């Protein structure tokens, strides 16, 4: 099938990408706002356009466990989840990454109960950044589609061999319709060769996987970390190769936007980037030297890229749609641990917003830039600020 343009939601774009990536085994359990992905994939299996084994499992724990079993015999696998489901399968995340199985999972970012809420923030995925999974965050449906395809190539690269979680903001991206370029199957097949690995159980060469280790445990994980450090180069390489073939690339670990001569820069994750872009353009028109940097990956963490940007600016803001209660936003903590290596790091503000799907509007982003410009001008600012809240917060 040749490429074409289609009008789809983020969830549907993911399903289309999964069809193009041809996983052998798909196992999934429904949860809003991921459900459309598993429904569409079921349709593809039913109509024969995707020849995968589709397992209707009884929980997210089993969804990832079945993917683990399939990956253990060398199958390419896919699953998708969100929120409570991601936490329900949490036991499996280090299990899979420790076994070095390149499972690709879509996560529809949704907040965590309680209180129960359906809308999007990043508390679910960010609670799992230490699980050994690569984490990428998408801005729009096209990037989501492209990243599912790229994810398989990155994850299965023998230099990396790590599972990947592709994150889409729930509803904001999963349920928003956009025109999307759908690549042709032959092109995708040429970009993404079949998965071959020696890291599997094999009838011709029997092996044990997921064993126990006492003395070697530390070395296994040191090796995992050393390989993960190679991932940024592989991510950049795959991004370029994708660009060469399909004409779209995303800048690897971080996509800076109008950062060249910026005085202040705002760091974003996911769809809020789109809002921030518009604000940056408007404020540039007005003569303010503002820019933004879209963090595409949270693991591996784009330390180098952040250092380069931080070294050039007078103030830096980090939007966190999450909070590590008792401290600060999780992205902020990670950014801080990178920039503290600079001789004189720029002052920083953590903007915590969007929890439980609370809107972050252009006006709010403009307000953030206003605060950052004041900070750059030497004014003292509160280090952690809650955005768009309905109650007083006692600083």
């Amino acid at each position, binding site marked *: 099938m040749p490429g074409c343009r289609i009008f789809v939601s983020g969830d549907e774009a993911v399903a289309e990408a999964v069809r193009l990536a041809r996983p052998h085994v798909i196992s999934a359990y429904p949860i809003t706002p991921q459900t459309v992905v598993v429904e569409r994939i079921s349709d593809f299996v039913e109509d024969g356009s995707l020849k995968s084994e589709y397992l209707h499992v009884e929980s997210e724990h089993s969804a990832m*466990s079945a993917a683990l079993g399939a990956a253990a015999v060398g199958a390419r696998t896919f699953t998708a989840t969100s929120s409570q489901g991601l936490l329900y399968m949490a036991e499996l995340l280090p299990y899979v990454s420790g076994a070095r199985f390149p499972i690709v999972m879509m996560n529809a970012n949704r907040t965590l109960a309680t209180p129960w809420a359906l809308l999007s923030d990043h508390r679910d995925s960010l609670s799992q950044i230490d699980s050994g999974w690569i984490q990428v965050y998408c801005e729009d449906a096209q990037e989501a589609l492209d990243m599912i395809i790229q994810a398989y190539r990155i994850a299965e690269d023998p230099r990396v061999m790590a599972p990947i979680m592709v994150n889409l903001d729930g509803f904001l991206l999963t349920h928003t319709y956009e025109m999307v370029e759908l690549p042709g199957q032959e092109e995708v097949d040429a970009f993404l060769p079949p998965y071959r690995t020696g890291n599997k159980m*094999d009838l011709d060469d029997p092996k044990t996987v997921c064993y126990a280790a006492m003395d070697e445990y530390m070395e296994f994980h040191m090796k995992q970390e050393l390989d993960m450090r190679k991932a940024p180069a592989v991510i950049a390489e795959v991004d370029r190769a994708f660009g060469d073939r399909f004409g779209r690339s995303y800048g690897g670990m971080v996509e800076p936007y109008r950062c060249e001569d910026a005085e202040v820069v705002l760091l974003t994750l996911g769809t809020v980037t789109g809002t921030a872009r518009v604000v940056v353009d408007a404020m540039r028109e007005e003569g303010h030297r503002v820019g933004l940097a879209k963090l595409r990956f949270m693991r591996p963490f784009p330390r180098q890229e952040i250092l380069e940007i931080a070294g050039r600016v007078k103030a830096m803001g980090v939007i966190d749609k999450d909070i590590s209660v008792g401290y600060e936003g999780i992205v902020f903590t990670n950014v801080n641990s990178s920039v503290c290596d600079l001789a004189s790091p720029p002052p920083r503000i953590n903007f915590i917003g969007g929890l439980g799907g609370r809107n972050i509007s252009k006006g709010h982003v403009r307000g953030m830039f206003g605060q950052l410009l004041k900070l750059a001008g030497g004014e003292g600012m509160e280090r952690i600020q809650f955005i768009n809240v309905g109650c007083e917060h006692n600083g």
Partner: protein
Amino acid sequence: MATNARELTNTEFLYGHRACAGCGGSLALRLAMKVLGPRTFVAIPANCMSAVSFLYPQISFTTNAMISPFPATGAVLSGIEAGARALGFKDYSVVGFAGDGGTADIGIQALSGAIDRGDRVIYVCYDNEAYMNTGIQKSGLTPFGSRTTTSPAGRNIPGAAGRKKDMFEIVAAHGIEYAATASIGYLEDFLKKIGKAARCRTTSYIHVLSPCATGWGFPVEQTVEMGKEAVDCGLWVLAEYEDEEFVLNRKPKEFSCVGDYLKKQARFKHLKEKEVEFITANRDKKWEKILKNWKA
């Protein structure tokens, strides 16, 4: 597929493990593997059997094998089977060996899902009647009156209070293609059942009573005898569920003494006459139901 002592292969597929002397579970696994043969994928969750046979680099399985997460045996087996199917493998078996806790408690959801999907996997529960790997704690299959480290027998509590979930009937209630109970006291019967399970086209389940010298508290040379006596005194029943019917495999002419069986084990030493009578009465009730409803 040889399932009797005379024809069983001399090749070992599980050896060099670190199980205690007098371990019924490891005997069940070792012999089941001889029936299933070299083209077998094994998944074992966290339990005694994985703890004693998967310590890198001294791996005790010669076939393909993996440790599955404790709650996930059924799902991991499904995944292996789906992967093997999708990749076009031919002539292989997929088997899981989970303990009683890994089956009846934390793993019951994944097991239920696998049977519901009808994936072609063999699920073996080796039942040593407690969480042994973590130090003899009570599971949903610990029988009434049993002393464990979490059901201590003292003045107020006479050991475990549960009745031992009936996993065989729970599994059968799914409409599974084949399920059976077995005991390492009757090995040929067990092996025959493993052979039958291997020939199934969908999910099969074997529940094998596997006495544990360490956890039950009996001399290590009496393991097989203990497995026999559990059947002979009627507390454990050998049966099959096939073609949607329950079939009783062994009906002792006369039960041996329940009290004698219990008193040989440290875990039941504290039981008083009245508790032994209660256990015996429950046995009789169960048998009454079996004789009325099951094919003999």
